[in-house]
């Protein structure tokens, strides 16, 4: 066995050990984090459920269409009290895009409708 190949064999052994070390470290790290996470887990689950209930999963146009369709069927025997639009995560992340909305909101300053 010449020198290059002997170096190669050594590198193979060391390299495989380091690879196993790295992935074992990740494996242990994940396991540890999962264990630490168990406590907070139940609480978070509850939060998630709440969030799901609140989050709007269809777009506004569809919402309007549904409302219109239902309204047509019920022939005006009810009215929409409030349509709340919850900002999606992706949008929240872009502060500049809020500007336009802010301006829009600001330019139609309306008081609450007297009932």
């Amino acid at each position, binding site marked *: 066995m010449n020198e*290059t*190949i002997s*170096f*190669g*064999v050594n*590198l*193979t052994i*060391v*390299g*495989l050990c*380091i*690879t*196993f*070390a*790295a*992935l*074992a*470290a*990740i*494996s*242990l*790290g*994940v*396991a540890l*984090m*999962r264990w630490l*996470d168990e406590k*907070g*887990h139940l609480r*978070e689950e509850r939060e*998630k459920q709440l969030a799901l209930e609140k989050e709007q999963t269809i777009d506004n146009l569809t919402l309007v269409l549904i409302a219109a369709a239902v309204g047509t069927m019920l022939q005006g025997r009810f009215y929409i009290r409030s349509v709340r639009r919850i900002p999606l*995560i*992706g949008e*929240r*992340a*872009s502060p500049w895009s809020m500007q336009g909305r802010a301006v829009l909101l600001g330019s139609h300053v309306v008081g609450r409708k007297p009932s």
Partner: protein
Amino acid sequence: MDILFNFLQTGAVGNFSWGNLIMLLVGGFFLWLAITKDYEPLLLVPIGFGILVGNIPYAYGMNIGVYETGSVLSILYQGVTQGYYPPLIFLGIGAMTDFSSMLSNPRLILLGAAAQAGIFATFLGSLYLGFSLKDAAAIGIIGGADGPTAIFLSSKLAPQYLGAIAIAAYSYMALVPVIQPPIIKLLTSKRERLIRMKPSKPVSRRLRVLFPIMGFLLTAFIAPGSLTLLGMLFFGNLLKESGVTERLAKTARSAFIDIVTILLGLTVGTSTDAHRFLTPDSIKIFALGAASFGVATASGVLFAKFMNLFLKEKINPIIGAAGVSAVPDSARVCQVLGAKEDPQNFLIMHAMAPNVAGVIGSAVVAGVLLATLGG
């Protein structure tokens, strides 16, 4: 008439070679594989068309070719030679990868380490065939079954073989559904292939946010040579999971990765002109590559069986084969093989764990090889 004569001299008439014709057929074959067989089309279409572009016969000196300094193709090819396309692709991959399956069953991560034995087997084989240490390391990485990692490492260690290594890596990745099943069947019993694994528990958002940070720190501390690739992979994943940078993650996994993929695939293809590509070394590289996929698959399966000796909840050894990376094809192979024995056995989720761990694993190996042999 002189003009016509000179013009023809600069073109196909004056520069035709049979090697170019063979390579044009190879490029056509790649396109056929991608378009009609749907094998890795996002890479084989650009690479296949690139092979056509790179093998049009014409006279050197018109400042067109990928190897002529200042040509457009050579400028676009810089992302390959300087090695920045692969990390940018890893950024996008990170932004589209869901590590949940790996997080919900961390012991499966080790399978992604075992399959890297294929890299080292090929490395030793290449040394034995007379390649230098650097070249052998670059050839070995084919066994990592991960295109960007292979291109990144060979651009640093063996740029002259980059084309052959990249083509070999993507070819075998496309052929994973052909290569892996017989090896897996050979090494497992029907009873083993019937093992059902427990559905994994859901993973909390906190864990998914913390994982890319922790994963990056651990791998970078242990193997800093993998920092460029894994830094980008975990950074992309943090953009995806943080919940506050969704617009960046979306761009990283759509427009950004698409642009880089187009440029990378096309220019890697063009770099395979017959003169450089049709050599005995390329044939050796392809043979070594095939071997490396076989060894990697076998290592993954056998290590799963080895782990079963110690575990109460047995692992279905089929999913060891997914440790070679080749995401997500090899995980699909596992699913198909498992479903053949038991149609209600959903292995794919479990197979994704070693599958993405294999990506990390081969990047770590690339880091080790780079740190030891590079510079």
